[in-house]
């Protein structure tokens, strides 16, 4: 199958290893992966700031870039959700609509489309999962603690296939990290406090590695971890699934 690799702008610039791991992982599962070199950004930074109208240029570009694929896969729930909910094209709405229907966050693509049974990965660490809100509550990659419904988690389902990994139960299983795009600077005090509290939960439970499906949240947590010179590190789920 022909998969278009959609890499968030900040991952491209700051976390190339996450994009590489995603690419290698998809290739391991026999996907033919194409990476449109002209891609930039999903437009969410403008839209969440109240400037959805300004994201039209991004939308047109995105639609052009990803027109020809069977699926579009992205290692970020937030960027995926934005495309799913808000991608529209004045030039080619038909293609935009089709893209909205076939864009997937990495873990849901692995579980729902590829129906991955085995991952040949080894990761001998105590790992805490940060449930990123847009993946979880937006794309329903896992059950939400607010709802009275049977639990499930696509991320945990995949991580449980990794050898020697120890998944750690947190005190608050799905609280927001406080990144929130421009929120992290516009509401600096609350944002930082939210991140600090998330980190404290992982540390209290002796987590060695914090993982998740969204590098933006992990970047936020990493910024806090590094400031306090913590030994805890962050790894995107793609890096763990591609490890060993």
């Amino acid at each position, binding site marked *: 199958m022909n998969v278009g690799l959609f890499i968030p702008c900040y991952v491209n610039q700051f976390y190339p290893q996450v994009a590489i791991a995603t690419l290698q992982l998809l290739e391991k599962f026999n996907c033919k992966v194409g990476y449109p070199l002209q891609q930039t950004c999903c437009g969410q930074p*403008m839209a969440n700031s109240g400037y959805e109208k300004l994201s039209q240029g991004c939308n047109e570009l995105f639609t052009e870039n990803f027109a020809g694929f069977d699926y579009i896969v992205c290692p970020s729930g937030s960027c995926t959700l934005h495309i799913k909910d808000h991608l529209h094209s004045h030039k080619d709405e038909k293609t935009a609509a089709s893209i909205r229907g076939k864009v997937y966050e990495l873990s849901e693509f692995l579980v729902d489309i590829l129906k991955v049974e085995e991952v040949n990965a080894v990761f001998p660490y105590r790992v805490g999962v940060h449930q990123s809100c847009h993946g979880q509550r937006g794309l329903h990659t896992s059950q939400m603690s607010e709802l009275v419904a049977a639990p499930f988690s696509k991320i945990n389902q995949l991580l449980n296939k990794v050898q020697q990994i120890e998944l750690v139960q947190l005190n608050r299983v799905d609280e*927001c990290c406080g990144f929130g795009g421009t929120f992290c600077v516009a509401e600096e005090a*609350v944002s930082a406090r939210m991140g600090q509290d998330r980190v404290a939960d992982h540390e209290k439970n002796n987590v060695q590695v914090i993982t998740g499906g969204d590098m933006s949240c992990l970047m936020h947590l990493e910024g806090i971890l590094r400031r306090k010179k913590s030994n805890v590190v962050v790894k995107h789920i793609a890096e763990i699934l591609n490890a060993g």
Partner: protein
Amino acid sequence: MFIVIRLNHSPLTIHHRPLPIHIIMTHNATHPQLATAFNKDEARVGWHDETLWWVRQKRDKAAWALPEWEQLRDTASAIKQNVLSNLHDYLVQFEQQALANGVKVHWAADAKEHNEIVHSILQQHNVTQIVKSKSMLTEECGLNEYLANNKVEVIDTDLGERIVQLANEHPSHIVLPCIHWKKEEIGELFHQHLNTPEGNADPKLLTAAAREHLREKFLTRKIAITGVNFAVAETGEFVVCTNEGNADMGAHLADVHIACMGIEKIIPKREHLGVLLRLLARSATGQPVTTYSSHFQQPNAGQEMHIVLVDNGRSVQLGREDFRNSLKCIRCGACFNTCPVYRRSGGHSYHTAIAGPIGSILAPNLDMKKYADLPFASTLCGSCSNVCPVKIDIHNQLYKWRQVLTEEGHSPKSKTVAMKVMATALAKPGLFKAGGKMMRWVLKYMPWLVNNKMNAWYKQREMPAPPEQSFTEWYKKNRT
């Protein structure tokens, strides 16, 4: 409490507690400024967060005790959707029934008219001292201030509301009005006002003191105001829910009972109370039901009963397709308790009567300019929508308000300029790549650095370490 405020957008410095709302309103401080002030006391923020998280957990426990919980939410939502789509007829029906029950019905187009109506009833009875149980509508309308200016003494009888009233503050939470107060501070406040022993912060003793203080008011006041949780079109009755029994103490002991309600409080039939009462207390505090769910259908013998139906912007909100279903709200406060931002910024940082996520989608309807900051006081995490017993899509509405506020020109010019630069860069791959050295590009365009001094991130967080090459560069070398 000692308050120092420096203007010109410098951070507010406060001691002790969040600012009283009247100070906030005078000085036009924004949510980020007030939240920054609140976060100066780290231990207090932790305590505030944990206290409310505990309430959220109680709510979860109560919800999980009912396998039909999600069905109840769906049903409640559908009932309220029906109400909004047929509100005109339900209002007419409710008035007819209430009149037939011997109740006097008043209509108030806005807050001012509401306050005037209430005041005129007091004047007719030559009353200058009244008791009032919790009503967020009267908070919204500024009734206490209005009556105080007209030399009427209002005693709030809900314990939490009385506490904030004695401190000359406003509630910071619609269900837990003084959730931001520590018991030691309440002990001090009561020592000053109710002569409790100095240094005693025992909740039992303090509550007993308040009971004695307020009982005297209940027994001597001739007019009582209450809020309304639900008003039934079919029967003309209205239901008031409390745990303390203060609404009943006030209403049954007074000669005149005035019930103030927003027009959206109407429900079609009595049977719908079954659905909504099952959800209300469980969502609010995790209780299976409030201690008292009082159904007022006719005036007490020898008593006068008034209902004031208030619009105050609701009919406008009803016309806003994207935002109308915010009017489904039953004021349970669950979205406050679950909101990670509310828990860490305190109710007063929202500088409006109804704080929290729901307040942030209601307030811009009343005044876009004044409340333009509130829809941005959220990470759009979506937890609020999930706990909402009537399934208001709160986080989607926050997103949509951001778009509306920007289009209506309530966004800072500098932000617009920055966004335009970013949009242009991101729409053109050539520019994206020609942005120069990676770090320069990033610092120029990355979303979390836009419209702000870059040190807002750096203040409490390290910047990501720049790698040697971007993924695109790696890909070109390795895959093409």
